[in-house]
């Protein structure tokens, strides 16, 4: 396939020219002048469309060569069907605008700022990013506009410019960000890391007792990546690609000495990046014992935020830097330690960083998509929140509901799943948070504020609304005084909706349909409700507790058999047919997944117990699955002690049959062959 890189049209026609050179030159000058005079006017009205059309997410990247700084007028169209149906980004020295043009009517969306004065004869990097929801316009490594809208989709991409020329446009497809590195390779093998400064080496043996004996095959992890700075400055290594954004970078880190170490996001070049810098608690330097988020721009550092607490030499930590839509977070051992906000660069590579000559070890690096929504309503961002019912307006740094009755404003993507949302709420009327919002159905955690006039005053409820019908799934008492301010929080995680009030868990409900959808702000009854500091975060997938598959060669390494074999985590039954019990204690929500092979091949049953006591066969809650030879029906029975909670016959089609048995909040859920068979509050 050929990708054609188009330029701004140059309507030059060169006929066969006869006659004197002067006439030829004059004709040419006239032609050229005509061409130059016509191009801008045409360009403004008729964008040059890129031939290649790709589905979002994508990034349009190009150069913008400034020819006349004062008259720069750049216009980029996305999802362009015709002039009356498109998104349009307009950039002039004094203003940047993003508009949704639908039905011929232009509506300004998102937030933006002006670039300011352009410099003559300069060439700036230009990127427009488009995914299912966002539009981001980046010029000269500055995020000039961000908008959130999914009203239009499909269509072409084009541009026009006066006072500037768009050069070498290219459509870069975007996709999932997922990259890992365990550095398990030879020291000279190919690597995805680029050493920017300092010294970087893959270490095939770690500096510990095991490695001293050179028994790499007995080391749980003999490999790491080692960096060391020099007199010229810090050591930096980068990976990934220029167009990566909204990601989290995770690394195990260990400093040999009391030297600063760090993680980098949105690396542009050695003079421009975002740095999470962590100094040592034992450092003699004035900036010791600190975790900092730093913006490095043109080599100049500015601290965006910092918190006390440094690392200790020789200690491994799990260190994380997250960036999304101007929100930056830093975590140590999964604990959020530092948050800052700044719209910088908008995209760029992840990287590793260290100072000093003692050296720092990095290992188990992962870069993954990270999505967050943080809205303090401090500036207008039209289009981000969409009114479904009632009246909503952004005012005084809050989102305010108006009118009486049910009001709903939503944002986000239909595909969002497994998340929690919090908001500070000034309660005059009843209020809540909507979850898993689809076109015709949604769920809500709602609180009946005193005096709001709603039927559920004094209560917290989780409700499901489907095709206009509302069903209460769960209720708990909750006192909300009129005019009081509270923090509401709700989560939706694989069907379980949980509600919190001021940090305390209040109630939950399980509904298999509560899986995906947008989020929303909900108000009800008399009085306005003000929402502030809305924050959404994705719930990471459950971690699988599994036995590491290495070191299971019992014959060769008999000394490891007790702790490293796949049977080691289980207490063996003392008699045939007895139960295997896990050695570990598992707290909170948990899921057991397993498969039943050969249903119908023989008579038999399998029992699975949650929250039991080893040796006490009737403790906990037990799922019993029974099969009969020749039948594709599984009989599922749920038992708690001597009480039978339910029995279901399930026709199965899969072989083996997948089974899930879960503790989800106050609910016990069992699924067989993809269908929920038990859903019991217990």
């Amino acid at each position, binding site marked *: *396939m050929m*990708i054609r890189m188009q*330029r701004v*049209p*140059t309507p030059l026609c060169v006929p066969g020219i006869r006659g004197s050179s002067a006439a030829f*030159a004059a004709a040419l000058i006239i032609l050229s002048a005509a061409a130059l005079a016509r191009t801008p006017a045409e360009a403004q009205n008729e964008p040059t469309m890129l031939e290649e059309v790709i589905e979002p997410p994508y990034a349009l990247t190009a150069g913008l060569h400034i020819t006349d700084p004062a008259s720069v007028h750049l216009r980029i169209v996305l999802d362009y069907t015709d002039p009356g149906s498109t998104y349009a980004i307009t950039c002039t020295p004094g203003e940047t605008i993003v508009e949704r043009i639908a039905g011929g009517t232009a509506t300004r969306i998102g937030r933006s700022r002006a670039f300011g004065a352009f410099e003559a004869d300069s060439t700036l990097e230009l990127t427009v990013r488009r995914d299912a929801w966002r539009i981001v316009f980046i010029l000269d490594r500055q995020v000039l506009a961000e908008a959130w809208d999914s009203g239009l989709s499909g269509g072409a991409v084009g541009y026009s410019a006066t006072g500037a020329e768009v050069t070498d446009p290219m459509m870069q497809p*975007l996709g999932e960000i997922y990259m890992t590195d*365990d550095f*398990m390779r030879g020291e000279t093998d190919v690597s995805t890391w680029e050493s920017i400064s300092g010294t970087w080496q893959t270490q095939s043996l770690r500096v510990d007792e095991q490695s001293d004996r050179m028994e790499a095959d007995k080391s749980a992890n003999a490999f790491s990546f080692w960096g060391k700075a020099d007199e010229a400055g810090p050591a930096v290594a980068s990976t990934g690609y220029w167009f990566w954004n909204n990601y989290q970078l995770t690394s195990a880190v260990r400093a040999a000495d009391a030297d600063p170490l760090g993680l980098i996001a949105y690396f542009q070049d050695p003079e421009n990046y975002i740095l999470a810098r962590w100094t040592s608690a034992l450092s003699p330097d004035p900036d010791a014992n600190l975790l900092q988020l730093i913006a490095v721009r043109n080599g100049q550092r500015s601290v965006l935020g910092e918190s006390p607490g440094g690392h200790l030499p020789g200690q491994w930590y799990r260190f994380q830097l997250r960036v999304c839509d101007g929100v930056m977070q830093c975590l140590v051992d999964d604990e959020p330690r530092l948050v800052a906000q700044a719209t910088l660069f908008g995209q760029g590579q992840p990287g590793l960083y260290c100072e000093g000559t003692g050296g720092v070890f990095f290992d188990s690096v992962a870069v993954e998509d990270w999505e967050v929504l943080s809205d303090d309503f401090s500036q207008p961002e039209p289009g981000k929140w969409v009114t479904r019912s009632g009246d909503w307006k952004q005012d005084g740094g809050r989102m305010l509901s108006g009118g009486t009755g049910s009001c709903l404003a939503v944002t986000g993507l239909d595909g969002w799943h497994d998340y929690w949302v919090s908001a500070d709420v000034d309660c005059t009327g009843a209020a809540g948070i909507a979850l898993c919002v689809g076109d015709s159905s949604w769920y809500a955690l709602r609180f009946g504020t005193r005096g709001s006039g709603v039927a559920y005053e004094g209560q917290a409820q989780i409700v499901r609304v489907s095709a206009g019908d509302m069903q209460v799934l769960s209720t708990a008492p909750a006192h909300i005084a009129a005019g009081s301010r509270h923090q509401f929080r709700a989560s939706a995680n694989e069907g379980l909706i949980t509600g919190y009030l001021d940090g305390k868990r209040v109630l939950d409900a399980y509904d298999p349909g509560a899986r995906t959808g947008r989020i929303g702000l909900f108000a009800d009854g008399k009085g306005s409700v003000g929402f502030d500091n809305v924050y959404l975060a994705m719930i990471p997938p459950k971690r699988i507790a599994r036995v590491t598959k290495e070191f299971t060669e019992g014959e060769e390494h008999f000394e490891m058999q007790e702790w490293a074999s796949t049977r080691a985590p289980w207490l063996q039954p003392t008699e045939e047919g007895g139960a295997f019990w896990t050695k570990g204690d598992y707290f909170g929500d948990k899921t057991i997944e397993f498969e039943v092979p050969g249903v119908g091949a023989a008579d038999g049953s399998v029992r699975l117990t949650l929250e039991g006591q080893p040796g006490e066969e009737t403790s906990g809650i037990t799922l019993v699955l029974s099969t009969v030879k020749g039948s594709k029906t599984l009989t599922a029975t749920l038992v708690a002690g001597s009480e039978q909670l339910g029995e279901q016959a399930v026709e199965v089609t899969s072989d083996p049959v997948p089974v899930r048995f879960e503790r989800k909040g106050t609910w016990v859920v069992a699924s067989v062959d993809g269908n929920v068979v038990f859903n019991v509050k217990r």
Partner: protein
Amino acid sequence: MRRFIVPAVAVTFLMLLMAGSASAAVVKIVVEAGDYFAISPSMVKVTAPYLGNNDYIHIPLRRPHATTETGPADTGNARYKINVPVAGTYRMWLRTWWYDACGNSFFIIVDDKPSVYVEDATYQSWHWVKGPSLTLTAGTHTIRIQNREDGARMDQFMLINSTQYVPTRIETRTSQYIVK
């Protein structure tokens, strides 16, 4: 002399304008795993409906898997012929799936050049891996993807004469450049 200056300037100006209006073409050659003209064991083709053109090539896992780093057990490979339309420097990319740290590479042999290999450390996930930079003449070339470790899979490979473009999804096959 002066009488030649104006035409010369004008022609130069004209050429510059014409050059400016010409389109710089990027050539992207996308080959599906199943487009080989020959395949030899232990390389096999596997059907997978969720992938580009429904198949991938694979060095099946051995038991025990990669217990040593003594090198591949055989020279199993898939061979492809492509027709390069424009001579130039092409970046090779491979869409791969690696089993683990001991099943994460392929040898690549272009025409009769020495073998090189690709690898990275993102496991159990389909993703594009940057391969070698190749200087290719216009015309037909043979590319051999060869066993280096068991557990490695490849869905597509791509050659592109752009240093900027990075594949991130399943790419559209370019049948016009594939010689069967």
